[in-house]
């Protein structure tokens, strides 16, 4: 009796397993031949479930317009996305259309994983609405590899609710770093009475983009053409030392409180008044802080300067794998996602500020979008350089910066040690 039940369970299990396998294997294959814009293509992106639902809508629109092309979808969260793509890249089996970040574009381009889209320009792919500086960030060695979906500019966001509550004036774009430090102390003084205490700023030297912004102010290159650092250890030390005084007298938000609030950060938790980041993340700031009442200005000026040097960073690029069997269909999808105003209306500004004017007009603007738009219009004449081409291994340098900076905030290493370790990491990452 017992044996018969066991056998039945076994048989049932095997049948279940086989059925499962059979169910899944339908995906591969499909109509084999054809260069035309038909067939089955795969598309992958990173993001949360909200973005998945938006892509679902956008791809439904695409299927309506191009009933001959079937798009198989896949998505992962940011960190998992790169694990999966790196494995696929090693197996030379990337999906046909891949969403790319500028930080990884150079690395993938070097392995010749992407199709040159300039061959399709003006034909299947319309790039007339894009600015040259923006298309430039998707171009490697004169080959257009990625079409940007959106862009952002480095900025300083501030929490109006918090500042109103404390009775402190909003920061302005005319402040230099000394003014900013004084202003932060003013916020701290008023914020000391609140529980938990509120601060003016979290250490603004904490990320590599901040440092790049600092370098660009003096018209310096960040990375050379051949993918090496164009700055020295002294540059790094000088930059970090701009925060020494504030770190010592406790002007900046305490490191242990930042650690406790990970991954939100002091600004997201509503305990710090300002946040240095790309203008594209304001939506995230609204979600994290729970208030739409946020403002955005340019980060402080270098001492003695009277205007900013800013650049546009492409926030998402659509690329086509060089191994694709259906290039026409893949480029058709890229063109649709990059140009259709209906698609822009679905995503709003969650992929960055839309790259073309037509798409910007199509977006139903939220309060956050109005703030970002006003900021971009305000700084338009200061966006004078194109964003540096990021070298292979940029991602690991950026991560190293954050890791080392935490040790600086805890007082475990000096600025000189920081610079030495950063350069050690760079010599591995940039030449690896």
């Amino acid at each position, binding site marked *: 009796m017992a044996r018969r039940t066991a056998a039945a369970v076994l048989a049932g299990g095997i049948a279940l397993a086989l059925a499962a396998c059979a169910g899944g294997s339908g995906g591969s294959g499909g109509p084999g031949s054809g260069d035309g814009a038909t067939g089955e293509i795969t598309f992958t992106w990173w993001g949360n479930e909200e973005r998945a639902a938006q892509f679902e809508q956008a791809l439904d629109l695409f299927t309506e317009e191009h009933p001959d092309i079937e798009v198989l979808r896949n998505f992962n969260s940011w960190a998992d996305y790169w694990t999966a793509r790196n*494995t696929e890249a090693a197996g030379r*089996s990337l999906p046909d259309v891949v969403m790319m970040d500028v930080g990884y574009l150079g690395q993938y381009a070097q392995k010749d994983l992407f199709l040159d889209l300039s061959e399709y320009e003006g034909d299947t792919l319309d790039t007339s609405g894009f600015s040259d500086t923006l298309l430039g960030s998707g171009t490697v060695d004169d080959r257009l590899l990625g079409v940007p979906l959106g862009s952002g500019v480095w900025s300083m966001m501030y929490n109006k609710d918090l500042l109103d509550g404390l009775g402190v004036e909003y920061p302005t774009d005319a402040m230099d770093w000394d003014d900013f430090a004084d202003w932060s102390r003013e916020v701290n003084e008023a914020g000391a009475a609140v529980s938990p205490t509120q601060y003016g700023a979290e250490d603004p030297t904490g990320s590599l983009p901040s440092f790049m912004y600092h370098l660009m102010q003096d018209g310096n290159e960040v990375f050379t053409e051949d993918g090496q650092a164009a700055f020295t250890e002294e540059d790094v030390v000088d930059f970090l030392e701009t925060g020494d005084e504030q770190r010592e007298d406790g002007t900046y938000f305490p490191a242990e409180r930042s650690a406790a609030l990970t991954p939100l950060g002091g600004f997201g938790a509503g305990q710090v008044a300002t946040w240095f980041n790309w203008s594209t993340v304001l939506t995230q700031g609204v979600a994290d802080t729970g208030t739409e009442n946020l403002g955005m200005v340019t980060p402080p000026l270098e001492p003695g300067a009277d205007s900013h040097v800013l650049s546009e960073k492409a926030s998402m690029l659509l690329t086509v794998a060089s191994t694709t069997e259906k290039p026409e269909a893949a480029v058709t999808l890229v063109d649709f996602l990059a140009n259709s105003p209906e698609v822009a209306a679905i995503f709003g500004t969650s992929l960055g500020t839309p790259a073309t004017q037509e798409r910007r007009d199509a977006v139903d603007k939220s309060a956050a979008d109005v703030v970002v738009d006003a900021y971009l219009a305000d700084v338009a004449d200061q966006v004078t350089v194109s964003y540096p081409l990021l070298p292979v291994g940029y991602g690991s340098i950026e991560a190293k910066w954050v890791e080392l900076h935490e040790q600086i905030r805890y007082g475990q290493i000096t600025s000189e040690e920081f610079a030495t370790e950063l350069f050690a990491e760079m010599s591995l990452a940039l030449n690896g």
Partner: protein
Amino acid sequence: MSATRTAPAPATAPGTGAPDEPATTALRRAARRRGTRRSLLFHVSSLALLVVILYPAVWMVMSTFKPSNQIVGSVSPVPSTVTLDNYVTALGGIGGVPFWTFVTNSLVLAVASVVGVLVSCSITAYAFARISFPGRQVFFAGMIATMLLPFHVVIIPQYIVFNELGLVNTYWPLLLGKFLAADAFFVFLMIQFMRGLPGELDEAARIDGAGHPRIFVSIMLPLMQPALVTSAIFAFIWSWNDFFGPLLYLKSPRMFTMPIALRAYVDQTSTSDYGAQMAMAVLALLPVMLFFFAFQRHLVGGVATQGLKG
């Protein structure tokens, strides 16, 4: 152990001491009091330790009832406002794929893994333990060697092979190995168990005319139950919790398993819904915990017998 046994004693103690032996009674009472104090200390300290160990789990479960924006940054497990929204979001599915699809996928994979491991590993183990064939030592050494091979070394070659075979985005890459006894851990566990079973049983069956299949099915399998149960539990839990395999091989959201799906709520480049992620994590933990509680007696029993028979 001894502390727990002495604990109930004081309750029945008062008034039972014999009146003609006051000295011994006093001594006994003192000893009992010492015992009580010691057991009290033991219990208080182990409870304190338990609180520390369980705190993260309790925090996670309680956080699922908090509004999403009150989770990160708060160490208090008590929600100020109780809401079920997180569960509603989690059960609402992701990108048009219903929640139950993920549960079904995970279950199908876990059950199929258990079946694969039990069938293939027990047969393989029987061959190694009971049949003397040429090259047995070499094959055995090879099997043990696969246990020493770090998993990360084989990821990319394996991916390339499955990709060439056109099996990516199917469940085959996750199951094929299980049905081909590629899990050396389970094979080894079963071999060790079989070696502990008396060989006389096989001989007796052989004299009665039984061949290998008959000996395996009628003699070995019933006696191997503890080893099979242990393997089944491990296979289920490992498959249920596996993240990396499904991440690499499953492309279509309709085929995602629970561990992949619950990551979809937290993305550092866009807004994160921590509440929904926590709720999803709790829902993902439930089946595997129930499974563990139902079989934990067998698990401990199985491991204990391995130890004795080794």
